[in-house]
């Protein structure tokens, strides 16, 4: 079964391995046809399917069975079939449903971006900016939770949580002792550690990186600076526990925080250990490599070294290459 299957997403055909999900096939094409994902995380087994922002329309099931799928499907958990045709941004139905999901995700979100450390690198902020309404129709008091202290390294703001379960999967799969899970049901569900035990594990800090919103943030970076005023630099060190490849966030000569390196979809390349993340905050601890690449669309790029470049395209595709060329010419003029 190593024969590749063909899938067409928004009119662009790509050949992928059988068993690939629609979302990953779209990521092989790249560009703005990639559905947004708030809960899916390629490095975490079992993640995805929950936030419903990545829903797409399957207008043709497969070559064998060309019937369309009756409902919109979660692209992160639906595998491609040979000859499948998928509509994402070309389907008004999908865009409408997605903006509905965004609205629903935001009704109980406190929208405290001005005081949130995640602002500027928040997936929900980006999503709301692209799809959300400017005004909310929700006129009730937003849901709040009791504050829970989960240790001196990680700050939990349950009010901001969108219950993507990513941190639960991280706690399950990366760390060897689970002290972190979901309590209660429905919209009372909350991320918690049982009996408020401190999350102490060498890799527990990774829950900060996987969190798409500001629910889990770095206590050592808390209220230090806005992310767009800091400059990210790739660096590494010889670490006995992890690979030691990280991004340092500088303000002047000070390292304000250390995170794992993230790809263009906001997923970490390698999980890092707590020593690297919380304790090594001097330039002398690290070997500096280069400025981190930041997507032009990110607010962090406004203060960055790199000049403007067109969006990267991973898969060679004639149509996209053409589009890229046009983009490049525009940039040159600019």
């Amino acid at each position, binding site marked *: 079964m190593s024969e590749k299957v063909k899938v067409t997403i928004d009119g662009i055909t790509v050949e992928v391995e059988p068993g690939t999900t629609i979302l990953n096939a779209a990521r092989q094409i790249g560009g703005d046809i990639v559905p947004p994902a708030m809960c899916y995380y390629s490095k975490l087994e079992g993640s995805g399917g*929950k936030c419903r922002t990545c829903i797409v329309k399957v207008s043709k099931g497969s070559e064998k069975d060309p019937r369309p799928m009756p409902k919109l499907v979660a692209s992160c*958990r639906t595998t491609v079939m040979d000859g499948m045709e998928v509509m994402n941004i070309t389907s008004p139905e999908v865009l409408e449903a997605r903006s509905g999901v965004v609205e629903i995700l935001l009704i109980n979100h406190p929208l405290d971006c001005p005081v949130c450390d995640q602002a500027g690198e928040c997936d929900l902020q980006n999503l709301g900016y692209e799809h959300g309404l400017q005004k909310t129709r929700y006129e009730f008091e937003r849901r709040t939770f009791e504050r829970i202290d989960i240790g001196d390294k990680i700050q939990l703001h349950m009010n901001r949580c*969108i*219950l993507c379960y990513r941190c639960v999967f991280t706690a399950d799969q990366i760390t060897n002792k689970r002290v972190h899970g979901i309590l209660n*049901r429905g919209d009372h569900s909350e991320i918690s550690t049982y009996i408020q035990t401190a999350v102490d594990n060498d890799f527990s800090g990774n829950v900060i990186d996987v969190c798409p919103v500001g629910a889990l943030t770095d206590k050592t970076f808390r209220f230090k600076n806005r992310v767009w005023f800091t400059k990210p630099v790739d660096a590494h060190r010889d670490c006995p526990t992890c690979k030691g490849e990280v991004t340092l966030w500088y303000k002047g000569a000070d390292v304000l925080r250390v995170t794992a390196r993230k790809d263009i979809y906001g997923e970490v390349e390698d999980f890092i250990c707590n020593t690297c993340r919380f304790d090594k905050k001097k330039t002398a601890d690290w070997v500096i490599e280069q400025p981190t690449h930041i997507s032009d669309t990110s607010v962090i790029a406004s203060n960055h070294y790199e000049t403007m470049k067109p969006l990267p395209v991973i898969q060679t595709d004639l149509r996209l290459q053409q589009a890229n060329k046009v983009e490049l010419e525009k940039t040159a003029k600019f």
Partner: protein
Amino acid sequence: MARKLLLEHINVPGINTLDVYRQKGGYRSVEKALKTLSPDDVVEEVKKSGLRGRGGAGFPTGMKWSFLAKPEGVARYLVCNADESEPGTFKDRYLMTHIPHALIEGMIVSSYALGAKTSYIYVRGEMMPQIRILEKAIAEAKNAGFLGKNILGSGYDLELYVQPGGGAYICGEETALLESLEGKRGNPRIKPPFPAIAGLYGCPTVVNNVESIAAVVPIINDGGEEYAKVGIGRSTGTKLISASGNLVRPGVYEIELGLPVEEFIYSDEYCGGIANGKRLKATVAGGSSVPVLPANLTLKLANGDPRLMSYESLSEGGFATGTMMGSGGFIAFDEDQCIVRNTWNFSRFYHHESCGQCSPCREGTGWMEKVLHRIEHGHGKMSDIDLLVDVSKKIEGNTICPLGDAAAWPVASAIRHFRDEFEWHVREPQKSQQTNYGIARYAEPIVSGLKQEN
């Protein structure tokens, strides 16, 4: 007297014991199936019978069985879904309380057909008396040699276990049920893979409702073709209906599918009409999840023909003028009942029971509940009504499991059919707290060319 297949001997004293049940012809189907039929023959009989799932969705049981993957060397499971917790549905509890052996007999035959060596009955945690009844009945059956090793000398082994549920409505969704049965938090799984491929402990599994499994017994006894003669069209056989609300005689009734709704409500054989001489205002025909219908559309189709109790007739006209068979929880409302209050009540239930896994259902059910609460208590706005329709549309179809749909349908349908009552609540906030809207025009005959919304 209409034909009864499941509740034929319900009034025989001691029918809950094995001896009396055997005297009335019990366990004939086990003997017939295990001694004369091959497992595939049993599946074929069920397919021929046209039996449709009695839990709510109405998926043909025989088809479901034939989808079961049968890889070599992998265990297969049959799980009976007795987590009956839909508001308005209580038929399975009745069946398990009074004729527990009917379920056990059905489980043995069904397990044999599917090749399952271990089967589970997942009973709602609140039904502790029924769990004890089932456990006693299983012990009796085991003593008589209908369970255990080498049943009736056929070489077929089966162990049957009763599992008390975790006490959540969501555990009635088949994949959440399997998660709960495995001892995990009862969150629905993301499909595919379907349970027929990877279900309980990752093995192929069939999950069936109590009534579906009990219906296998008459199918094997009389043959699938004979069973298919009962009922109407593609709705074959009999169905247990839990009738509740403002009826003279609420209770569990076994009806032959195809019975006119009017006869079911008003005839003395069944519910005996509306209590206290009042008039019917609205019904929920299949448990709280299905669309609510005004009296006129309950009794008649949009074209004026009488509506029948069958899968097709109840859903005739789609959601614009129809509803669904659902699990058979028939709730009748008389002229004094407030549809807004009832919709809010249902909405509160779904808000409370949402598992919290996927966002549209987790946040949307709470939002609808709050808006409905506001309208019901006289603080609503006109724009709230359209807001509710919009929110329900955004939940429907965008969730992992059908709970989102089930939460959205009652709200959307209540507004579709009873919009003037909602508007009255907004317009007359004080009056709506003291009196109710009454029957209005909901029982008037349908004029042709009914306004089609949606």
